[in-house]
């Protein structure tokens, strides 16, 4: 699978001359007695990809929602270009240049691509009560922005619902880029996709990075994260397992941390005890042994 993914250009890490675009400083979030996030920190630089990895329930979604202004953190700080920020609505986060591509992509399936592209920020022409949606411009810009991402859309009048998963992601990313995002947050963009489509989306991530955007790429798949990431934050049950630069961690270590090596060994034992199906447990145990400790 990783073979289809484009490799990160090694030149970019730590090339940013000034401070990080976004710094997350010891963010915590509680829901009643539930600790959803505990003192999470990481940084995102312009022209770099920070991957946030974690299994289900690790707190990835909560973190995104804090960054996109849906939730407010109970402790900790968000700094953009060293300036502390608070986002009390999604709009404020958008205005600060943070664009979030949610898993549902915030697109309306029954509507045409160009209508979706400009949804909420429609260009207008005319005056006063005769002000109207500048549809020619909308169609033109949509086509152009998609071309810039390397996608030749067939027909801007096509409803978004008829696009493939990867194409939909690309529309959402192109939209965020067009509306001046400085920081792009992608929520599990590859999780529902096939191998090939996931590779295509990874290519868009690299493209956005090369255009100088900071990217936060949320995923539970280390094989998707490692090739494109410059920095990796691992979350587990709301706590940070570590925040590594690419030079500090190898792909295998990342995979091992993600999979939770000890838990895998436990699972292997349990499967062995079940006994029945010829050596699945032994196979798994061997796999686990082969991972670096």
């Amino acid at each position: 699978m990783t073979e289809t993914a484009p490799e990160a250009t090694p030149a970019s890490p730590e090339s940013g001359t000034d401070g990080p675009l976004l710094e997350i400083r010891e963010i915590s979030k509680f829901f009643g007695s539930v600790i959803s996030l505990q003192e999470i920190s990481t940084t995102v630089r312009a022209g770099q990809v920070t991957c946030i990895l974690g299994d289900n329930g690790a707190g990835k979604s909560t973190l995104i929602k804090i960054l996109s202004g849906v939730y407010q953190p109970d402790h900790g700080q968000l700094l953009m270009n060293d300036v502390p920020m608070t986002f009390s609505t999604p709009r404020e986060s958008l205005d600060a240049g943070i664009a979030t591509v949610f898993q549902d992509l915030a697109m309306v399936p029954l509507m045409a691509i160009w209508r979706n592209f400009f949804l909420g920020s429609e260009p207008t022409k005319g005056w006063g009560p005769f002000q109207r949606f500048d549809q020619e411009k909308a169609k033109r810009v949509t086509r152009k922005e998609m071309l810039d991402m390397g996608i030749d859309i067939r027909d801007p009048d096509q409803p978004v619902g008829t696009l493939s998963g990867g194409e939909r992601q690309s529309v959402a990313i192109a939209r965020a880029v067009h509306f001046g995002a400085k920081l792009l947050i992608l929520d599990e963009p590859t999780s529902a996709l096939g191998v090939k489509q996931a590779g295509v989306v990874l290519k868009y991530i690299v493209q956005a990075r090369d255009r100088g955007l900071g990217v936060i790429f949320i995923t539970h798949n280390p094989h998707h994260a490692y090739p494109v990431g410059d920095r990796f934050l691992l979350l587990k049950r709301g706590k940070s397992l570590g925040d590594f630069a690419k030079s500090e961690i190898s792909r295998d270590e990342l995979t091992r941390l993600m999979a939770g090596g000890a838990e895998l060994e436990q699972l292997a034992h349990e499967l062995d005890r079940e006994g029945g199906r010829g050596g699945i447990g032994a196979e798994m145990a061997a796999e686990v042994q082969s991972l670096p400790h």
Partner: protein
Amino acid sequence: MTATTTATPPPEVRDERVARVGFWRRLLLKPEFGSLIGALVVFVFFATQSSVFWHASGVANWLDPASTYGIMAVVVALLMIGGHFDLSAGVQLGTAGLTTAILTTEYNLVVWVAMLVSLAVCLGLGFLNGYLVIRTGLPSFIITLSTFLMIQGLNLGLTKAITNTVSVGGIDQEPYFGGPEKIFASQVTLFGQKYYIAILWWVVFTIVATYVLMKTRFGNWIFAVGGDETASRNVGVPSNRTTIALFMIVSFAAWFVGQIYLFRLTSIQANAGFGFELIYIAAAVIGGCLLTGGYGSAIGASIGALLIGMTSQGIVYAGWNADWFKFFLGAMLLLAVLTNQIVRKYAEQSRR
């Protein structure tokens, strides 16, 4: 989807991946297509049953109910595309007429002032509907079912308490009656046949609603909020304001139609408009609106109303008992939903 096929610049190169969509298929894709065919069939059917049906006097006769249904069907369609229902749309027009009538005849307000108060009352009801829907997050069907019942009760209760009867009349005896009558209830003679001016208003409502829906930002928001409210909110569409505005537009139209009924008949019953809400929804659905929102057309709803108007009068011309109207209405609705479903499947296939 229904987006206008604006002329693309000629140098555009055709993409080989886009199958050429034939004229007929493109026509089928329009949400209003089914209702147009239906209207033609109904027209031909009743025209063969009675020659009066297609003569000027007959046409004026069925255009009249079609016009008042049509004005409401158009705004109800907008609301349905926005993902909501308004079951109180019918009784609100009763409220509108009753308020104007009672304030002029019982409280001696000048007609114009009474009309303004009535408008404010209606817009308030629309706001209340919309506000309750967005605050509670409950289905608008339930919210407006309760406001429908309450308004119905208020219409009857207050009218009886104030006038001791269930109808208010005599508004034509009041000063300044002629002005609003001209606007809402005058008749225009065309080729020797008198037509109510409501037909003109119906056309105006249809054109304005279609323009708003297809050509403005607000129209884009209506489709978006009905198609996926969370998604549209996430990209910054003011979904709450859009929803409230839609309910208030329905109330405005209810006020407008309420004045038409009042000034035409010079009296109004306390139960006016009761039961019409379902006719409006039927017209919108026949016109291609999806019950789930996000899809539909104002022109379609207008044609749906035309179809219903023709049926309601055609039955009489054909010499049948008018009681059969509701049966035909139901049958047409069923037929329309079934055809729409088949057509949409076929149309969607052509996209792949």
